[in-house]
């Protein structure tokens, strides 16, 4: 019996994977086409810069002013703040996605397998870090709670990643590869 089940399950899994990938390919192409006219500033991570604004808004909400350990306390949010934070976290996810795509477009040009695999390993680690914090914060947000420290950590991950991407793009541009940078940004 197992001799029949395994190949059938394997074939169905591969077929499912093919369908998922085809769907993803279509949606990515649609996204790229719809972002064709976006200015360059909007093609790079930018939402993370709003962290101080969000923190100020949380602070200005009356009840939190009494909290002494601001950073580490789990704040219980009201509807308005909860929405605001959720939107900010979504923005961070978009930032990370953008950074990740630019990173992918650049490392595609790796001259050899060794450096490609090393960079991919770093990318995987970073992704793991980001998604760990992202899931943790999202679960808490569903219960209308957030810790500023955790939010700061997630912002740190994205901001540092964005900084590295920016530095790399600037360095490439300054070394006379501005055409390459433009092509990377338009493809990611």
């Amino acid at each position, binding site marked *: 019996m197992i001799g*029949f089940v395994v*190949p*059938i399950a*394997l*074939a169905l899994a*591969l*077929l499912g*994977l*093919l369908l998922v*990938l*085809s769907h*993803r*390919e279509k949606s*990515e*192409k649609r996204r*790229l086409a719809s972002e064709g006219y976006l200015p360059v500033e909007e093609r790079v991570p930018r939402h993370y810069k709003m962290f101080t604004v969000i923190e100020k808004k949380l602070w200005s909400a009356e009840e939190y002013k009494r909290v002494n350990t601001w950073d580490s306390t789990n704040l219980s949010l009201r509807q308005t703040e909860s929405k605001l934070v959720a939107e900010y976290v979504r923005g961070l996810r978009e930032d990370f996605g953008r950074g990740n*795509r630019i990173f*992918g*477009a*650049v*490392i*595609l*040009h*790796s*001259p*050899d*397998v060794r*450096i*490609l*695999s*090393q*960079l991919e390993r*770093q*990318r995987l*680690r*970073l992704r793991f*870090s980001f998604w760990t914090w992202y899931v943790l914060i999202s679960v808490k947000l569903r219960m209308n709670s957030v810790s500023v*420290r*955790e939010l700061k*950590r997630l912002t*740190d*991950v994205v901001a*540092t*990643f964005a900084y*590295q991407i920016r*530095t*790399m793009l600037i*360095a*490439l541009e300054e*070394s006379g*590869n501005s*055409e*390459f940078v*433009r*092509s990377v940004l338009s*493809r*990611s």
Partner: protein
Amino acid sequence: MHIPAFENLLWGLGTALKVLLCILVVYRRVYSRLPLFTVYAVLLVVEVIFVWLVYRTWGYTSGVAWYAYWSALAIVLLARGLVIAELCWVSLKNYPGVWSLARKIVGVTATALLASAGVSAALNKHWIVGFVLTTERGLEFAASVILILLLAVSIQYKAWLEPMEHSILIGLAVYSIFQMLNRTFMSPLMTPYFHWWDSVRIACFDIAIVTWLYPLRRPLPTPSAPPVLLSEEAASDSLHQLLERMQELTSELKHLRKAIWK
């Protein structure tokens, strides 16, 4: 031997599609971009004509017919393997790092496949049957995995495939996956329950051909301009710098995580 009318119809349709594919591939000058796929498309027609002529001359049950069928199948199978390799090369040739990795994967897979087919041929009474059947079984699985990986890589790095290459990939992947199912449903134990599967088996290759014919209905678009490349020196320098920074960043994050969970 009696062949049901529906399967006869499917066979006729399949032959017509193969001829149409062959004509369109030559007419649209696909050979300038994908020479091995062109050879494969021509071979599909040659195989049908050759086997049909042999059956007609020497009879369906003759020894000549037996060898002709298996030899033709082996050649077409080899050509299909080469088409997959060509597809990988055409899609990734501009990216040395990724192509070098893909070349290794395809090379190791092909070697393993041929080695196991060779062993099977040596052990089988009819070497050609052992060789073809083992190669086919391995090729279907390896082909579907390699093609799906190629699609995943193209999406991950936004190294999009041209429409013709994309159709070939989808057609070949769907066909290989169905062939994996065919081997199960066409086994002696299952055939009594799934006698209609034979029609599915014939129809799935027709579906693959229709997928390949679709982009050929119009002149093929000029291939998109090759990606802007970094000089090898610049790529090496900036990527090494990037790697160093990323390593710093991940170790920083590791420390942060430790500090928070303490």
